């Protein structure tokens, strides 16, 4: 009986110690945090780094963001993209970064049967998404513009670092630039000896290592119709999480309809194939960025089919009826908020 008493007392003391420890953790762990705001690539970015070299790594990351922004900007006349777009079909010699991003984007365009197309810019411009002078284009103008949209006509000469597009084509890295940038920043952070950091480039989240207390980073996927609510939380380390949704950039036209910025390259209209949010989780920010757009364009059925064949990435897909589809690789790392129906997409390993 004395033993039982001892056990009970030990349990009570252990429980109290546990509670107090969890409290003191909250108080102490932010000491070595270094945080930086950056406004670039038309978005708000935050870098959160832990450890001695945090400040140095953040400054170098900011320099890299500015460098890549200059290369990938559509509007800056000196950018690689502008050089390609203004080359009247003759092509332009560009940086290694531009070649890498374009090569990966074309691979994914091919894998997704053109659901991702970095030549969609003329159509996006016609809708006013680049200037915020929104309008619903007539179908004749869209058909004419779609004549100048086809990733298959983009050619990359790896030896000469040259990209050529037909006259009238315009490239835009809007669906891939932030993903590549977050990959580069994570590289810089690691090279500078920082083993714990979280990079958020306007919703493109990428983690370096774990949190400084050794636990996993928690990344929430927000409700597509209510930003104050979260659909689920993912526990990650060394992974990127990128979401594309129809709630990010949109306008309401005079016809009362909502039009969003993710354009279906096959129709020239905002992609409306069943999904309202597509999140991709993987080790490459660039791949996650490109695929989140592609899966959104593909729509529910094609996206589920794609995910079931590609075990190297994970995804959370939400359709118009708020059905949630989650790839089985996330079974252990996802916590879905209560009240939501979800189904796992089972895949062969």
């Amino acid at each position, binding site marked *: 009986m004395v033993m039982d008493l001892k056990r*009970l007392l030990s349990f*009570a003391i252990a429980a*109290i110690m546990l509670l*107090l420890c*969890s*409290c003191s953790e*909250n108080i102490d762990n932010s000491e070595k945090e270094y945080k930086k*705001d*950056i406004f670039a690539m038309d978005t708000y970015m935050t870098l959160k780094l832990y450890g001695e070299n945090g400040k140095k790594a953040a400054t170098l990351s900011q320099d890299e963001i500015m460098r890549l922004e200059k290369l990938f900007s559509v509007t800056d006349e000196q950018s690689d993209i502008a050089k390609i777009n203004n080359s009247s079909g003759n092509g332009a010699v560009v940086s290694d970064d531009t070649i890498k991003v374009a090569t990966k984007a074309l691979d994914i365009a091919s894998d997704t049967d053109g659901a991702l197309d970095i030549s969609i810019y003329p159509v996006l411009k016609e809708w006013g998404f680049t200037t915020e002078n929104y309008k619903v284009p007539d179908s004749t103008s869209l058909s004419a513009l779609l004549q100048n949209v086809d990733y298959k006509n983009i050619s990359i000469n790896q030896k000469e670092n040259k990209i050529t597009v037909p006259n009238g084509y315009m490239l835009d890295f809007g669906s891939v630039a932030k993903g590549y940038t977050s990959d580069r920043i994570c590289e810089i952070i690691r090279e500078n000896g920082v083993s714990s950091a979280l990079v958020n480039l306007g919703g493109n989240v990428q983690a370096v290592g774990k949190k400084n207390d050794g636990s996993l980073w928690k990344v929430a996927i927000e409700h597509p119709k209510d930003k104050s609510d979260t659909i689920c939380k993912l526990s990650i380390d060394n992974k990127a999480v990128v979401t594309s949704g129809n709630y990010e950039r949109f306008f309401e036209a005079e016809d009362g309809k909502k039009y969003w910025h993710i354009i279906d390259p096959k129709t020239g209209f905002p992609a409306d194939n069943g999904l309202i949010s597509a999140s991709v989780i993987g080790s490459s920010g660039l791949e996650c960025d490109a695929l989140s757009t592609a899966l959104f364009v593909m729509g529910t059925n094609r996206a589920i089919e794609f995910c079931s064949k590609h075990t190297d990435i994970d995804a959370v897909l939400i359709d118009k009826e708020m059905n949630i589809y989650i790839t089985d690789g996330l079974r252990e790392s996802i916590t879905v908020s209560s009240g939501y129906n979800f189904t796992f997409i089972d895949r062969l390993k």
Partner: protein
Amino acid sequence: MNVYLKKLAVPLCITMVIAGCIIWIILQNLYKNKGSIAEVRVSGETIMRLDLSENTRIKLNGEEGIDIIIVVENGGIYVEHSDCPDKICEKKGRITDTGDSIVCLPAHTVIEVIKK
């Protein structure tokens, strides 16, 4: 003595756990109250820190000549008016908890509730 202790054991343990919980809640609240400060940053530079327990109304100059009016009221902070075109910062409403933030992208301005 053993019989007496045996009778007291369970209530004693329950009391200890409840006492622990109360201490934990008090400490959590103390920690939460430490977050009653808002940091205002323009282009990454901290330009002011506002105590959320002191009601005030401030006009600040963001980037691109955008003026923003910030109001601190009853432990929270919100953007009352911004000259920016999209007004996303105004629509965000009042924030109170540590880690919450209001971002005005055109003015390169961030208002974030942080620990004291």
